């Protein structure tokens, strides 16, 4: 007995396997297939035959997958990976693996540069390693993208030179007790560098003069790293790299500890070797390796990460709500304990990261494209169909983040008026103001989205345009703050 539904399911799984088609693409093809089958069965053809004819008419699955893969340059890597029997692809895969291993090791080697100048001991000079850590970890990842995406070499190397230049700058700046500006550099350097990585992830913006003329809207078609979708993909990529890095890092840690414990049993102390070589090579190389894995095993992480986002959104909401409750019970603590403010900021940064990430993981072709219904013979446009519970939860998270941010801001301002401007407080003030602006933008976006006045895509666009503000502020803290506060 022929079971149409199970056959269609099998066909869908087959389509999905290459990974170049999204769920909405497949739904579209499925509805085409069913239309086709319906029409054929009307002509007194059996369901089984109709299914076969309809599938055949749709064409060769692998060709369709290839065509879809070509659609966005974002997905170019899939074409390079999927046909493993293609000798050219196999060769490129092998070269890629060699390059990734080389770059991973070079990250470790970079981290040994301070040792050449007599700053070899990580524990003694931990601040030095902290502020340069971003450079060690991200420079190889940037080189990997230059190769992977075949970026224009001259321009890439000009941008790449920011890495050594900023290394010179932050290490030539003096640092005096109590080293607050140096500590701020260590905190902000990675933030600025992540945005630098976005340039290599998306590639330079190309002004496509032809399509600009056609559309008559010059500058509207942002390409390369300026493109909204590229930035969204980068956010997702960063989140997934983070998850991968944490997983691999934990595994590495366990392995190292077991190994070291065994050596200790036979009377060999390997800890000096581990802290000098294994730990830095493992840690700084982690990011390039994770970036490579995110690209290679995209489907795998794509199914884990949204689940993680969904688990943690309500949990973060709970934490924020309990923070607010704690503040209501002990309002003075927030102002008197400076550590509390730092923890507030840390949690807020995570909340923002989480909401950015769940934004990028959202399959908004399903929930936001308008759906029309026939009413009185005319089509009524209903602009959206939000995934109510989920979007409400995200909005609640953002709203409580605004309250927490407000508490943090009032805390900073009261400390500022009591003790004057210090580097830490000024940096925190700037960050909280930026964060508050960002959160308010998000809330207005969500409210308009709930009122069906705008699509979700618009929120994403505004948010992605806002991202560079963080990079500019982080760079500002790294470059301007030390001289401003006399390098203290």
């Amino acid at each position, binding site marked *: 007995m022929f079971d149409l539904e199970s056959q269609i399911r099998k066909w869908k799984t087959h389509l999905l396997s290459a990974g170049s088609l999204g769920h909405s693409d497949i739904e579209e093809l499925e*509805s085409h297939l069913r239309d086709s089958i319906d029409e054929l069965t009307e002509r007194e053809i059996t369901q089984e035959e109709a299914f076969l004819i309809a599938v055949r008419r749709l064409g060769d699955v692998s*060709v*369709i997958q290839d065509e879809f893969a070509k659609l966005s340059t974002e997905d170019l890597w899939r074409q390079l990976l999927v046909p493993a029997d293609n000798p050219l692809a196999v060769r490129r895969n092998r070269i890629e693996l060699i390059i990734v291993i080389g770059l991973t090791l070079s990250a470790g080697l970079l981290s040994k540069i301070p040792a050449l100048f007599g700053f070899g001991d990580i524990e003694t000079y931990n601040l030095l390693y902290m502020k340069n850590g971003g450079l060690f970890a991200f420079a190889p990842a940037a080189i990997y993208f230059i190769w992977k995406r075949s970026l224009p070499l001259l321009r890439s190397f000009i941008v790449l030179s920011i890495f050594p230049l900023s290394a010179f700058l932050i290490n030539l700046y003096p640092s005096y007790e109590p080293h607050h500006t140096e500590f701020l550099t260590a905190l902000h350097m990675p933030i600025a560098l992540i945005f630098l990585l976005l340039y290599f992830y998306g590639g330079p913006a190309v002004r496509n003069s032809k399509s600009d003329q056609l559309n008559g809207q010059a500058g509207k078609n942002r390409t390369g790293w300026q493109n909204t979708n590229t930035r969204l993909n980068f956010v997702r990529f960063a989140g997934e790299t983070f998850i991968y890095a944490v997983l691999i890092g934990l595994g590495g840690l366990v392995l190292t500890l077991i190994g070291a414990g065994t050596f200790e049993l036979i009377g060999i102390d390997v800890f000096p070797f581990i802290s000098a070589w294994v730990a830095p090579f493992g840690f700084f190389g982690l990011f390039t390796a994770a970036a490579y894995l995110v690209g290679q095993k995209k489907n795998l992480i794509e199914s884990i990460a949204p689940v993680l986002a969904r688990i943690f959104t309500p949990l973060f909401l709970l934490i924020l709500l309990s923070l607010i409750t704690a503040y209501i019970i002990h309002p003075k603590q927030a102002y008197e304990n400076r550590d509390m403010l730092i923890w507030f900021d840390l949690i807020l940064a995570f909340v923002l990261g989480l909401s950015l990430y769940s934004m990028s993981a959202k399959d908004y072709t399903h929930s936001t494209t308008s759906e029309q219904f026939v009413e009185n013979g005319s089509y009524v446009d209903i602009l959206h169909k939000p995934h109510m519970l989920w979007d409400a939860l995200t909005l609640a998270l953002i709203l409580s983040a605004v309250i927490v941010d407000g508490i943090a801001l009032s805390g900073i301002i009261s400390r500022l008026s009591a003790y004057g401007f210090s580097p830490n407080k000024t940096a925190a003030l700037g960050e909280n103001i930026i964060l508050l602006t960002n959160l308010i933008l998000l809330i207005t976006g969500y409210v308009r989205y709930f009122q069906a006045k705008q699509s979700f895509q618009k929120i994403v666009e505004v948010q992605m345009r806002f991202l560079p503000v963080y990079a500019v502020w982080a760079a500002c803290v790294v470059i301007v703050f030390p001289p401003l506060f006399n390098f203290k």
Partner: protein
Amino acid sequence: MTLPKDLVAASATPIILAILQKEDTYGYAIIRKVQEISDNQIAWTDGMLYPVLHRLESAGFIDSYWRKAENGRRRKYYHITASGEEECGRLISQWSVVEKALQILLEETHT
């Protein structure tokens, strides 16, 4: 007589845009319409239509929305944008240049 591949590829965009200019419609209906107006002589592989549609969408010539049909099936409808109409006009005038040239040559050989 079926058209060669190159000609099919070149004519796909103006044909799709012209169909959408008349009304919003979905992939399967576009295929049927093309078969109907060309007497089955323009034969597209059904599945290849969708990448083309997506490409037109990302170029901003068309946009799309989901809609439920009476039988409960969700279909993705495509709608032509202002710049798509512009593009359509441009492509069709290009085609008519070729057509006119061929027409003149044809008349010249007959006279």
